[in-house]
């Protein structure tokens, strides 16, 4: 055999990678260069040809070679993997009859506890009111702080026992600063007109740096409103909802309540191991994953029609049907990953836009098929380039082969490919056999968890939070990184990032629209990565490891886009360390990092057995 120029092409879910090499007569391989392009179409379909051709042309151009010199193009045997995500909120907080106001405004006024009957400010100075009872004044929109203070002062001089106030506008401090008698004042109550009039209520404002003590305590509420044990039991959710606030209002109405309702989220049906198991989605992620483990190997998963999860599973199936032309009945979902999450949601019946942290279950599903159309891609590539092209090997096997070019790696070696929609693992045993699996849940699920837990509407911001470290702008001229180091800047930082938690993207600082502290955002980010990638790394390795025993693995090489993440490889290495595994980010050919494993694996396989 003479010296041949070959290109290995790996069509992935999001990127298409090419590796150019010269294979000598003795099978010696000289790597000449690599290229990276976006994948065109769904992986494993004829649309991939455009991206593959572009990658081949680019790698040739970089090496100064021409298509005419090319001996052959080697493609991976890639099966389409389609993934879907759904989120089902399983709890809901509802306030009935405007029982409480617990939005925790930034600047309440005064401090202490006031208990009295709610009276609109317009009726405060009228005739025929009961001047004996303590009064909580309710101030609608449109009242100026000077007028409010003057009215309250004059009422107090007239002998009205004003004990607290609830304001629509943001001026509690302005009003209390002008009062002759100090009272607690809660402001920014947007729907103040819905506050029931003539009802016994309590307003509490804690001193700066403290949280309320009476209204967040069930027995405090019982004392204030003289409740019997049955009534106390009924108001205890109110106390719980107000815990941690600096200010709050509780209104005693005949049947008003705060309820924590469980939303029926439907049933998930898992078929496998000759059984059909059913699990309620609202039972939570642990119950779902336990049931999944009992149905291994899973043949198919169905969701209840009309639920988010049911809709998502059906959609994943439909997409695969469209892509492969296989009937939906032949397409099976082999894996799901359920993750418990907390979603901030506006409370129904709230007067001031209160937000409660609701429980939710996020579910990722994945479907793969045996029916690949890579030969069609190869034919099209051959036609366009005018060279020969063929399917050179199965991607899992090629990935481990490529991973072996990482310095310090030996057989048996396992690879984990951290992708967008699925996490893939493959094992190359000492005797040369390969096993490969795909499990559901990867980078996109991490982004979704970050977006929902931080209530970020913009997916792009959530993606940035996932990919880059955080910082806090502390002045116009300095910012503190998440590890505590401080950086001074020469040019003043723009006002829109002042005092904000920001993401340190390569394009500059991007503010995170949240009231959370840097530490809280960082915790959400790391937990999302841990619950998806660390959990999936272990899950996937168990499926390829001999007898599911992780201790039987020696070397684990991390590949794929997420292996370039600034913390995921360390987190996975930490998670695998107790099993005595050497784990690290791959460095293909000692120079390419975690990229190009499959493409170079294709070249190496060809060099061993030229087709």
């Amino acid at each position: 055999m003479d010296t041949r120029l070959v290109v290995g092409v790996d069509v992935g879910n999001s990127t298409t990678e090419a590796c150019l090499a010269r294979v000598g007569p003795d099978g010696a391989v000289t790597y000449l260069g690599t290229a990276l392009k976006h994948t065109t179409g769904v992986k494993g379909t004829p649309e991939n040809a455009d991206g593959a051709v572009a990658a081949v042309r680019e790698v040739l151009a970089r090496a100064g070679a021409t298509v005419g010199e090319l001996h052959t193009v080697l493609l991976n045997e890639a099966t389409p993997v389609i993934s879907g995500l759904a989120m089902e909120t399983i709890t809901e907080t509802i306030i009935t009859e405007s029982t409480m106001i617990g939005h925790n405004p930034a600047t309440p006024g005064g401090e202490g506890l006031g208990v009295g009957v709610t009276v609109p400010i317009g009726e405060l100075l009228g005739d025929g009111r009961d001047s004996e009872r303590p009064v909580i004044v309710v101030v609608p929109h449109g009242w100026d702080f000077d007028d409010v203070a003057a009215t309250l002062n004059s009422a107090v001089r007239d002998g009205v026992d004003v004990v607290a106030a609830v304001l629509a506008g943001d001026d509690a401090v302005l009003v209390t600063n002008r009062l002759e008698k100090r009272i607690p004042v809660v402001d920014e109550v947007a729907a103040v007109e819905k506050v029931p009039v003539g009802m016994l209520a309590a307003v509490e404002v804690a001193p700066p740096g403290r949280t309320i003590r009476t209204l967040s305590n069930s027995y405090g509420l019982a004392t204030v409103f003289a409740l019997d044990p049955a009534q106390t039991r009924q108001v205890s959710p109110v106390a719980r909802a107000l815990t941690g606030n600096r200010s709050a209002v509780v209104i005693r109405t005949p049947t008003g309540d705060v309820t924590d309702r469980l939303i029926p989220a439907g049933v998930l049906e898992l078929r496998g191991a000759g059984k059909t198991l059913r699990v309620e989605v609202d039972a939570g992620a642990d119950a779902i994953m336990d049931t999944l483990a009992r149905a291994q190997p899973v043949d198919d998963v169905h969701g209840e029609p009309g639920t988010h999860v049911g809709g998502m599973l059906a959609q994943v199936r439909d997409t695969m049907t469209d892509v492969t032309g296989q009937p939906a009945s032949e397409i099976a979902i082999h894996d799901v990953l359920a993750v418990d999450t907390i979603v901030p949601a506006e409370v129904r019946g709230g007067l001031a836009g209160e937000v409660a942290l609701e429980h939710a279950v996020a579910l990722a599903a994945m479907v793969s098929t045996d029916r690949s159309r890579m030969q069609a891609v190869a034919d099209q590539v051959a036609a366009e380039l005018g060279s020969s092209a063929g399917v050179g090997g199965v991607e899992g096997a090629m990935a481990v082969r490529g991973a072996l070019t990482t310095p310090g790696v030996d057989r048996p070696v396992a690879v984990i490919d951290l992708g967008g929609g699925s996490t893939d693992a493959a094992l190359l045993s000492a005797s040369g056999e390969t096993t490969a699996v795909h499990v559901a849940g990867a980078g996109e699920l991490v982004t979704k968890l970050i977006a929902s837990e931080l209530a970020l509407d913009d997916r792009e911001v959530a993606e940035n939070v996932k990919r880059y470290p955080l910082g806090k702008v502390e002045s116009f001229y300095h910012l503190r990184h998440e590890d505590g180091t401080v950086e001074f800047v020469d040019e003043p930082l723009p006002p829109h990032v002042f005092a904000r938690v920001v993401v340190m993207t390569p394009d500059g600082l991007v503010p995170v629209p949240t009231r959370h502290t840097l530490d809280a955002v960082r915790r959400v980010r790391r937990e999302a990565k841990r619950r998806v990638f660390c959990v999936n790394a272990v899950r996937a390795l168990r499926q390829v490891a001999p007898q599911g025993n992780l201790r039987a693995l020696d070397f684990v090489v991390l590949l794929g886009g997420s292996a370039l993440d600034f913390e995921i490889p360390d987190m996975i290495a930490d998670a695998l360390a107790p099993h005595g595994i050497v784990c690290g980010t791959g460095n293909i050919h000692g120079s390419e990092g975690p990229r190009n494993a499959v493409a170079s694996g294709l070249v190496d396989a060809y060099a061993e057995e030229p087709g």
Partner: protein
Amino acid sequence: MSDRREAERPSVVIGRHIDAFPGVLREVCAGAEEEGVPTRVEPAGDREVRDAAALAHSAALASGLEVGVGIDAGGIIAVHHAKLPPGAPAHVTSPGAGPPDWRRAGQVAARIVTGLPIAP
């Protein structure tokens, strides 16, 4: 304000053109007061034809908290920090601004002092 101790108390300084509508000043002061930050007003002479940003920057230089507000004759408000370049104030109201925007300008000044986000 004639009390010397009062003058030395760290505060946001408001440089106000004497022709500015008094309602603007009231709302700016209220915005800062709601955030718990003291203010001090220094009227600027009518002969000095200066824009809000220039008024705000000199006010910031005179402020113990290094934060100043400038209100020009037309009622435009600028909020400045002493360490920012004079031509680049932290916040400027638009010409059609109303009382809520004036109040917000005072709030922005206070928040630069307290280190809270100033963007809406």
